[in-house]
């Protein structure tokens, strides 16, 4: 934070906040919380105090959302369900978490001299005893399988995309997974998703970035 005399002012976060109804306010805070927890890892000086305060805020919001009843598909956090959370995959190395939950766990553990890779929990999906750690969100609990991406209806992902700038004929080719060996675009599912990554909402972009990170992590761990 080396300033060149530039004033740091209050952002217009407050104005946004006041206009929103309570659930959206909560979502805004939740998004900020997740961003900060992730950036905790990248900071030069990780602070346990800060991480704990952020985690508590996150928990409080999650508890509130739970009390309002059931899973909330449209209000669940943008954090992705990733294949890494499957129990039989190797644990994430403690210094490079790929998800906010792992980020939180490792940031809590990172200062502990005794912590090693093996101490890091494998992921919320694999917790024993039916315990539902407060750190988890609904979306994490769902994702135990590696086929998350293929299980989704692709149409659902593309629902809210503004397609006005695209040629409708191109769009229809890309949106429907082509049968194997068909002419035209013989694109894999991954490519379909990546091609649209620039025009998704910010929460999906976060999802994409985290998916990329997971992909890289998989490669690193397996090699």
């Amino acid at each position, binding site marked *: *934070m*080396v*300033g*060149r*005399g*530039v*004033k*740091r*002012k*209050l*952002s*217009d*976060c*407050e104005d946004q*906040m006041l206009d929103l109804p309570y659930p959206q*306010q*909560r979502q*805004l*805070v939740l998004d*900020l919380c997740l961003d*900060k927890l992730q950036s905790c890892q990248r900071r*030069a*000086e*990780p*602070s*346990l*105090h*800060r991480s*704990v*305060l952020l*985690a*508590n*805020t996150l*928990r*409080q*919001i999650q508890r509130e959302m739970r009390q309002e009843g059931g899973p909330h598909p449209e209000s669940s956090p943008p954090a992705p369900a990733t294949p890494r959370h499957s129990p039989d995959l190797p644990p994430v190395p403690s*210094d490079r978490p790929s998800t906010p939950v792992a980020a939180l*766990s490792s940031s*809590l*553990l*990172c*200062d*502990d*001299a*005794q*912590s090693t890779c093996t101490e890091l*929990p494998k992921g919320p999906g694999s917790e024993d005893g039916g315990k539902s*750690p407060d*750190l988890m969100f609904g979306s994490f609990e769902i994702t135990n399988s590696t086929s998350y991406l293929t299980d989704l209806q692709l149409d659902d992902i593309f629902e809210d995309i503004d397609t006005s700038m695209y040629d409708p004929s191109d769009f229809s080719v890309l949106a429907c997974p082509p049968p194997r060996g068909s002419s035209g675009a013989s694109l894999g599912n991954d490519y379909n998703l990546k091609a649209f990554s620039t025009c998704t909402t910010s929460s999906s972009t976060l999802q994409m970035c985290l998916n990329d990170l997971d992909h890289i992590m998989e490669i690193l761990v397996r090699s």
Partner: protein
Amino acid sequence: MAGAGGGSNDVQWCFSQVKGAIDDDVAEADIISTVEFNHSGELLATGDKGGRVVIFQQEIEKSQPQCRSEYNVYSTFQSHEPEFDYLKSLEIEEKINKIRWLPQKNAAQFLLSTNDKTIKLWKISERDKRPEGYNLKEEDGRYIDPNTVTALRVPVFRPMDLMVEASPRRVFANAHTYHINSISINSDHETYLSADDLRINLWHQEITDRSFNIVDIKPANMEELTEVITAAEFHPHQCNTFVYSSSKGTIRLCDMRASALCDTHSKLFEEPEDPSNRSFFSEIISSISDVKFSHNGRYMMIRDYLSVKIWDLNMENRPVETYQVHEYLRSKLCSLYENDCIFDKFECCWNGNDSVVMTGSYNNFFRMFDRGQRRDVTLEASREGSKPQQVLKPRKVCADGKRKKDEISVDSLDFNKKILHTAWHPQDNIIAVATTNNLYIFQDKVN
């Protein structure tokens, strides 16, 4: 112009000195991270992010009609160096988190300085004489051939220019897994405590290879961690008593006579939450950033994000006094959360007779609360107000849109300019206020 008073007369705070670079471009290493007067007030120490300690010494000009005093550089030394933890691939910052002076026992001065991991005991001593007239050595140090010596003389001490030397006498290392946030010297003059996020250790000042763990709040499963220790201090007179504050806004008082491990508190100071002020950020702003006993040992003061609270040690259910530092920020908490300012850790301090307390705020403002006279004042540490003996003009922040002349609106406040560290001379009305990289010294006009 009235200021917050420390006695029957109103104190008029005047600019005295400012130390540090004038440049707006702040070098990271120059950021001041702690300020502390010694027990007599003659010495003022500052620590910075670059691991350096600078000590200023008070010089009283008796020639003036009023006794003005000036603080001039006495000693500068590199206390801590950056280290690298290879196991965790983390750099251990050299930033000085706290400095605490030991009570003076002889001609030398001793202080403890700490970074995140290591505490060091430094001896600061003066040398104003040196031996001259060696038989076997020239004045410049060259050795004389003994065969050429025809007469012997006794070396004598002659005065020399004052030299102040700082030497590390003890290094207390490897006792903390988490970041050290506090050190506090016991009134028994033998021991001191050091606190990190989860543990508090008791040391003997002479023994560096072991310490006793007296508080441990680390849960068996780190995922259950919801609370950390934020500050700790020994009682000024009772050598068995200390307090520690937490990120949940509670303070625990512990008695070391009760058991070796003081995980169970003797007293728990916790104020019930005000439901009308509840928000997403309630817990974050209740996190205590500093705790200080009063000099008389009857009260303790805590600083959380928006307020200063004074507790009577005999009453655990609520504080006896609460002062709002910058209540106008309550409606801006979301922005402050977004830009991380909500995590800023402000310190607080008492004046010599415990009648006034002081703490910092944003825009280089600092606040004083006169407990007896129930008055408070906001002052500013800035170069504009820094003509010699210029009386500081009280400031006012306008919370709503109706800004009066000379008032500053909340939206114009500069959140990069924060005063986190302040110190008050133990006897006199002299205060040291640290902005990002400058140290301001203000004094009472009338003497």
